[in-house]
């Protein structure tokens, strides 16, 4: 590979001796100044009403990589399951048993407890027509809620946000606990905020230089110009970072969460739910469930993380009287093939199950029939419920939003809430 400069290695590197160390460079500004720096066109919206406690909140838990649904919700009386998975199937006695027919993966004891309390529902055979087996593409389809033949650049939560945050100062109605924002949370007009750690985001946003740039910028109401769009995004980010950080410290949960990324993330979410923040949708991911090889270990390890974090989270919600207000659901971009492969793993499949967890469920337990393993499409499950029906139901019934407008089509309403 060629280098443009031949003397690079021998160059004078005086700049590498620190000129201004980052610590000196950062000056944490006070919270009060944040709103003063909003551009004028946003200021008018600064004091929008907060969402009062008791309001409905959704937590989306994405299982990235394609979780194997058949070893999650296990058809323990199905001979085909045991025949097609000679070494991967999970024996009835080793599982968290729900009914005669249905058991959960042994690592999901807390999910069984939620089932026993009536706080858990399972939706089987969720998918979409003409399924795609590429992780990225199938995830895109779940995020955008498009048909598999369409390519959309916005996500279903992003478009929900557009409806909620029409000219609002901060797009905090939806938050992703991550460093990078997913397509699901990108709208036409607004993008949600990605925040792995409220304190760190606050630190970044409070870089003195960034605040100074914003303070010295005089917008000329040319919102349509790209530079004004960038300044608007920057102002929203700085304002949101302050707001989220402040709210996260208002009623921080005292509960103990497992020391995992998911545990920390759900702890942040709980603290925000207990605050006055206007966030209605939280988004968080766990992975990778792409278990082509040695599935048992990998899935058990991840399920243990999920089980322990969700247990801490739901215990916390119950203790604070918010279990009925929060709906947590899981999804994965696809399920896996019914038959195991030669490496004690499974390959990419199609339809899958979803967990729905809340104290406010109208229908509980196993909501529909287990997968029909005698009726496969080239070795893969056939979907029975379009995932967009689930979205539409949650948007309409839980978030009181216009699902048809957000999803671009009318989907069937389900009755679990």
């Amino acid at each position, binding site marked *: 590979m060629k280098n443009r*400069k031949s003397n*690079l290695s021998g160059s004078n590197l*005086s700049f590498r001796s620190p000129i201004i160390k*980052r610590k000196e460079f950062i000056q944490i500004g006070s919270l009060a100044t944040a709103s003063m720096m909003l551009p004028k066109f946003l200021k008018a919206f600064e004091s929008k009403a907060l969402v009062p406690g008791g309001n409905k909140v959704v937590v989306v838990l994405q299982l*990235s990589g394609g979780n194997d649904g058949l070893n999650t919700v296990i058809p323990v009386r199905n001979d085909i399951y045991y025949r097609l998975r000679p070494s991967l199937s999970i024996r009835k006695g080793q599982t968290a048993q729900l009914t005669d027919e249905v058991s959960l993966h042994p690592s999901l004891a807390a999910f069984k407890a939620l089932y026993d309390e009536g706080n858990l529902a399972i939706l089987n055979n969720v998918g979409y027509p003409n399924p795609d087996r590429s992780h990225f593409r199938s995830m895109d389809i779940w995020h955008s809620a498009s048909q598999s033949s369409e390519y959309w650049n916005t996500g279903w939560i992003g478009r929900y946000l557009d409806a909620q945050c029409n000219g609002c100062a901060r*797009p905090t109605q939806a938050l992703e606990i991550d460093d*990078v924002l997913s397509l699901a949370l990108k709208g036409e007009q607004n993008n949600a905020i990605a925040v792995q750690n409220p304190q760190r985001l606050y630190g970044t946003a409070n870089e003195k230089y960034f605040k*100074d*740039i914003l303070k010295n910028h005089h917008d000329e109401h040319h919102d349509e110009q790209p530079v004004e769009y960038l300044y608007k995004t920057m102002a929203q980010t700085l304002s949101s970072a302050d707001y989220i950080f402040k709210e996260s410290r208002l009623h921080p949960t005292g509960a103990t969460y497992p020391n995992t990324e998911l545990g920390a993330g759900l702890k942040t979410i709980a603290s925000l739910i207990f605050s006055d923040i206007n966030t209605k949708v939280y988004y968080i991911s766990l992975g*990778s469930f792409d278990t082509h090889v040695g599935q048992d270990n990998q899935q058990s390890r991840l399920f243990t993380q999920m089980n322990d974090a969700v247990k801490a989270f739901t215990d916390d919600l119950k203790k604070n009287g918010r279990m009925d207000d929060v709906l947590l659901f899981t999804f994965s971009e696809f399920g896996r093939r019914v038959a195991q492969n030669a490496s004690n793993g499974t390959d990419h499949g199609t339809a899958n199950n979803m967990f729905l967890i809340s104290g406010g469920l109208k229908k509980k337990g196993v909501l529909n029939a287990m997968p029909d393993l005698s009726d496969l499409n080239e070795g893969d499950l056939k979907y029975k419920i379009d995932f967009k029906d689930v979205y539409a139901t949650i948007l309409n019934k839980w978030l009181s939003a216009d699902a048809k407008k957000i999803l671009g089509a009318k989907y069937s309403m389900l009755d679990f809430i």
Partner: protein
Amino acid sequence: MPVTNQVKNQHLLWRAGFGPAVEQLGEISKYTPAQYYKAIVKASDKRPKYINVAGEDLVNMYEGLMDAGRRAKLTADDRRELGRRQREAVRDLNIYWLKEMVASPAQLREKMAFFWHGHFASRNQNIFYNQLLLQVIRENALSDFGTLLKEVSRSASMLYFLNNQQNRKGRPNENFAREVMELFTLGRGNYTENDIKEAARAFTGWTANARGEFVFRKNFHDEDDKTFFGKKGNFDGDDILKMILKNKQTAKYITQKIYRFFVNDNVDEKITADLAERFYKSDYDISRLMEGIFTSDWFYSEKNIGAKIKSPIELLAGIQRMVPMKLDNDNALMQLQKLLGQQLLYPPNVAGWPGGKSWIDSSSLMTRMRIPQMFTDRDELNLTPKQDDDQMMGRKNDGTASVPVGKKKNAYAINAKIEWPQYISKYEGVKRDDLISSIKQNLLQVNTPGLENALGKTVDASSREAYIKTVTVQLMSTPEYQLC
């Protein structure tokens, strides 16, 4: 900002390439855009060298797949290792091409290839298919669109990405035919569903072998009559492509897309209609189309200057062209591509990167503004890109990392060694009081008053050198620098 020759030429360098390079500082204002464009075209007239990043043992392993005797002996571990090595090579190809964008004098060719790479978007884990398609695109970037379309349509990378190996007589797979029309040529709404069905039949039997060579499998080809665009005949794939090119809508669709990419996200209907007409009449001569754009008056009008949001690749290449640097670990460039949402050779889907405002959200904007700080050690890379299961195959990370900072989790110093002396020497004749405005002119295409005031105490005035460096880094860490 008055539209001086300097502004115009910088505009040209950002759009017809990846921005002004440090060597060009000082000369930019001396020429007219017409003179400058001539030089740019000349620098791109050579046939590009084939990029090969696959080492001999990878080639040897891969050949083991092609030989039936050797293939039978491959274990599952061998195959996994081959997959791993290929993915690694695709990463190497990504970095190699990014460095070409930074350092190659053939800026127009690489920029054009970058456009076609997003237009003919394909994802493939086979390094050889990737290399072959990249060569097709770089070689034909400035030739004629008909040849480019034909070569891409016959590439292993695209045929496999769009499942045409499954497209056979009696059980057609329409994916390839659909995307050729919807995304590569006509655009949605300019054909019927029946046209797609019939075109798919014409493409039956088009596939490629393991060497990446086009193969026509006659026994899979549908020899019966097809009806396409109202005409009936025993068409094959080449006939369909010709008929698509004969349709003026193709010229219109391509011209508008080029206008959005090179000029302005908001299409000027009249201008693009004119351009399309000429493009069509020239038999889709890409060089002439680009000349028509880059030598027009309207291209240099104020509303087009600084009107585009740089894509992540344009941003990363542009910084490195102005302040050349060497990284301890090139994987930092991969991490940044992932964090900002644009990875070469890895478009989100066959529709390519949507571009424009979609590059910007709160996280990507803050990351963009921190990158110049990271390159100069004033900030660290403490962000984690999303996992990518198509590439990582279930592993927790892709095994790449930069240099850890202390004991902090997930925090890395990029450790870039910047070649400052040449850059600083370009400001030799500039008076101290004029430095900020001079640097600003060289770096920014958007002039927002007041920005100088923000520099204030964050710049280091202890020496002239330190001053130039910090003003440069700070001006690159602005919303304005995201635009070109």
